[in-house]
């Protein structure tokens, strides 16, 4: 039967030809898709935690997990078993319902994003017309989970930690969303498959490297990874919003963070680095998984490298970096890309219809947009240099005036 060759996408048709009720067959297909899409991130995360620990160990000149299973691969499973059998403490005075709900909401908000991640030309949970907006909206529920956790713990450190984190998350969501506007504008669609499809000729990262960089940086901050890891800062704040959580509930927050990092890497690849686009992907759709996860792994490792090598920033530095650098830059970037697209159209440089997938036909448009981005980068660098020079000369005056003061104090 032809319908039964690709089971995931045509299960309904396959089942109804073998005599099932069409409505029921449809429902079974949806259910199968949902279970696959939900389980995939949860299974991958078990492996990711191992990767992360090995990687961090190498950087810190250790060996990392090496006892359970070959190369310590089963360490995470052992840890999960340990977490499940640990006593789960709910502090006195906590709001039980909200306290138990918060870690679940935190994981669910990340898993829900996977519904619209295009993994290959034919494998996507569901290709919504408003896919890009869907994952922004669903992702923003995660902020609420942190607020719920911090409030329901009935602990002032948890509440203060939650407030700081939420202020950080909502601030960094603005450049995040503005960066997503650029691929939406270039592809002329919010559907994730359309966005990937529009990159067959040229990756959007080439057309607007600034947007890609802003997306990566703000995604790094959204997941609370170093240098923006004020969410945890376990060595300075007493762990922040999840201080009262123990056992499996703590583990869920932890797992949610790991899935979120991978999810953001996948989104970055889908939005800016061509997604599943690659040679022979139309003949053999399964290759899309390889391209997609291969590129995402690179960004995941880059994110790990940043996490393990950069020092933590102070919260005021972090807020300044967002409001006075990323937000204005992302707004200007959107305006410039919009302007250049009009210029490209007026000069007739856009690839002719039918030629969108051709690399050569895309070059003029790409050259114009890339030049515009390079101009912005040059101007921004010049501005930063001037500002830095001003700051340093102001600092020098302060130091020379207060000679007896320690330089460390003067810097504050």
């Amino acid at each position, binding site marked *: 039967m032809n319908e039964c060759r690709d089971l995931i996408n045509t299960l309904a048709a396959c089942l109804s030809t073998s005599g099932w009720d069409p409505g029921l067959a449809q429902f079974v297909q*949806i259910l199968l898709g949902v279970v696959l899409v939900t389980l995939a991130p949860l299974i991958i995360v078990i492996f990711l935690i191992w990767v992360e620990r090995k990687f961090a160990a190498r950087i810190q000149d250790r060996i990392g997990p090496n006892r359970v299973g070959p190369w310590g691969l089963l360490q995470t499973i052992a840890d999960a078993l340990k977490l*499940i059998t640990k006593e*789960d403490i709910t502090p006195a005075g906590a709001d039980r319902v909200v306290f138990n709900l918060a*870690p679940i909401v935190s994981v669910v908000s990340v898993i829900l994003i996977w519904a619209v991640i295009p993994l290959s030309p034919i494998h996507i949970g*569901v290709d919504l017309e408003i896919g890009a907006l869907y994952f922004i909206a669903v992702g923003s529920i995660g902020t609420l989970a942190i607020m719920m956790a911090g409030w329901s*713990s*009935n602990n002032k450190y948890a509440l*203060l930690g939650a407030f700081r984190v939420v202020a950080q998350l909502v601030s960094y969501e603005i450049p995040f969303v503005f960066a997503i506007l650029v691929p939406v504008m270039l592809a002329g669609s919010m559907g994730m498959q359309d966005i990937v499809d529009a990159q067959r000729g040229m990756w959007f990262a080439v057309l607007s490297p600034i947007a890609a960089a802003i997306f990566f940086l703000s995604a790094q901050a959204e997941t609370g990874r170093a240098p923006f890891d004020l969410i945890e800062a376990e060595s300075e704040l007493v762990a922040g919003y999840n201080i009262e959580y123990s056992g499996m509930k703590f583990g869920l927050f932890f797992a949610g963070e790991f899935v979120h990092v991978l999810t953001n890497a996948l989104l970055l690849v889908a939005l800016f680095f061509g997604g599943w686009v690659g040679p022979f992907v139309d003949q053999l759709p399964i290759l899309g998984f390889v391209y997609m996860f291969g590129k995402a792994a690179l960004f995941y490792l880059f994110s790990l490298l940043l996490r393990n090598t950069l020092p933590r920033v102070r*919260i005021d530095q972090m*807020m300044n970096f967002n409001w006075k650098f990323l937000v204005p830059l992302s707004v200007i970037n959107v305006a410039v890309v919009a302007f250049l697209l009009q210029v490209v159209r007026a000069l007739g440089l856009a690839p002719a219809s039918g030629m969108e997938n051709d690399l050569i036909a895309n070059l003029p448009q790409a050259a114009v947009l890339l030049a515009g981005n390079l101009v912005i980068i040059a101007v921004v660098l010049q501005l930063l240099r001037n500002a830095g020079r001003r700051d340093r000369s102001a600092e020098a005056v302060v130091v020379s005036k207060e000679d007896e003061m320690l330089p460390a104090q003067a810097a504050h």
Partner: protein
Amino acid sequence: MNVVNEWAFIGVFMAVAWIFPTLPIVLAAFVSPRKPNAIKMQTYECGVETVGDTWVQFRVQYYIHGLVFLIFDVEMIFLFPWAMAYNQLDFFAFGAGLLFLFLLTDGLFYAWFKGDLEWS
């Protein structure tokens, strides 16, 4: 898949996605030991007993950051359809979008130069 089915998928997804994170918590509730005592249940406070109610006065700057975020978030209602339809829009629409962005950033610059975005 037609439109109804797409959203049926999301609906089923939202119903099912809860199950897998809830499962380990429910499992843990059966497996894990449960020996509460007064000291264990205490609110964590660096080894000292909790002083007073969990009442801290928060500074208003949290609210102001949330406020600026809200305004930018609402602008997205208009910017996303604009960006989506951008391939079919003319120079006039570009001007309208630019004016929109300009009016929006005005507020940001006001907050910036008045020092409301400084974190102290």
